[in-house]
């Protein structure tokens, strides 16, 4: 490659890079800064109705039900104030557990059910060995007993 061509190629790469940055920023600010809506926000009609969106919250304990096909699941996403019924057909991520965080993408159907086409697990920033986690759980159980 001649030096002039090389220079042009670099300028091209630079311009393309900046274009990609701008496109990403625009895209991010348009829709994705609100990555998910809580059930309360959905009930307050802050979530978009005409397109797919994501809801996030905790999977309510005891709400997970599997249908006989083994793939379709029903569960309730809660933000402790409001609940939302979710239906999903597919494989759940490893970290999906009752009482843990979840983000589901999909739409509301006519019955107010959220039909998800993607379910992601959201974990927290706590890292600890299992023994410590069990101790914490036991301590919490003791507290609620008192």
């Amino acid at each position, binding site marked *: 490659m001649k030096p002039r061509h090389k*220079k042009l190629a670099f300028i091209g790469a630079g311009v393309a890079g900046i274009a990609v*940055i701008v496109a*990403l920023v625009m895209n991010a600010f348009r829709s994705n800064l*609100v*990555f998910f809506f809580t059930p309360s926000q959905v009930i307050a009609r802050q979530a978009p109705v005409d397109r797919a969106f994501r809801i996030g919250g905790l999977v309510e304990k005891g709400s997970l039900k599997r249908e006989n096909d083994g793939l379709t699941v029903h569960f309730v996403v809660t933000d402790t104030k409001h609940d939302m019924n979710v239906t999903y057909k597919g494989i759940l991520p490893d970290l999906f557990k009752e009482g*843990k965080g979840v983000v589901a993408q999909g739409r509301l159907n006519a019955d107010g059910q959220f039909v998800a086409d993607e379910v992601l697990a959201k*974990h927290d*920033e706590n*890292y600890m*060995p299992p023994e410590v986690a069990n101790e914490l759980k036991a301590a919490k159980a003791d507290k609620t007993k008192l």
Partner: protein
Amino acid sequence: MGKINWYKYASPASFYGLAGKMIPGFAALSIVFFVVGLYIGFFVAPTDAQQGEAYRIIFIHVPAAWMSMFIYIVMAVYSGIGLAFNTRLSAMMAQALAPTGALFAFIALFTGSFWGKPMWGTWWVWDARLTSQLILFFLYVGYISLQAAIDDPRRSDRASALIALVGVINVPIIYFSVKWWNTLHQGASISFTKAPTMAYTMLAGMLFMAIACWMYTIAVALYRVRLIILERERHSIWVSELLTEGLR
């Protein structure tokens, strides 16, 4: 203790020699800290209650993410000094840091991806944390290509310094993105305002790996800045003297 003449080391000619003396030390420290960090990360730190063994990706992911942000800030500071005082060496230091910063930004992105797939259930989502980190990577790429596109070193220093200084806004955005917006990415385990939410040995492994990455960065940046100095000062008398003496 005698006064050190700092101005002497601000000249590329004398910094070239000083940097050459510092490289082996930082390189050796980097290897030691990597070995200790990996040992703690894989053999001392226990498994995680939530994530099992997959969480061990944290030992490379978090140090790389920290480095990518920190290097960008240091690069912006050097660029700013270069712009304000017209010092040649600081502009060269900024230039020497950029490829390593880009490398760490890339490592943070793909290790995050390899962590997200088994844990979250996806390789990638466009949430605020991931998107802003991707933008950081493109800022590095933009900086490097702009630097390479302009032949005149003075002009290319000035132009790329502008990218470095404008782009530095992105760093706090990355850092606070998990607080300011709803993201799939979890919050910080280690912050200035509260106690770490990690078991002690896990934290130790991560910190050792972070120090190792620091030492690696310093050694590599010094090595690269020496090459940049030689390249840019090739017509000067001290370089030709160095060459006739036999370059080590």
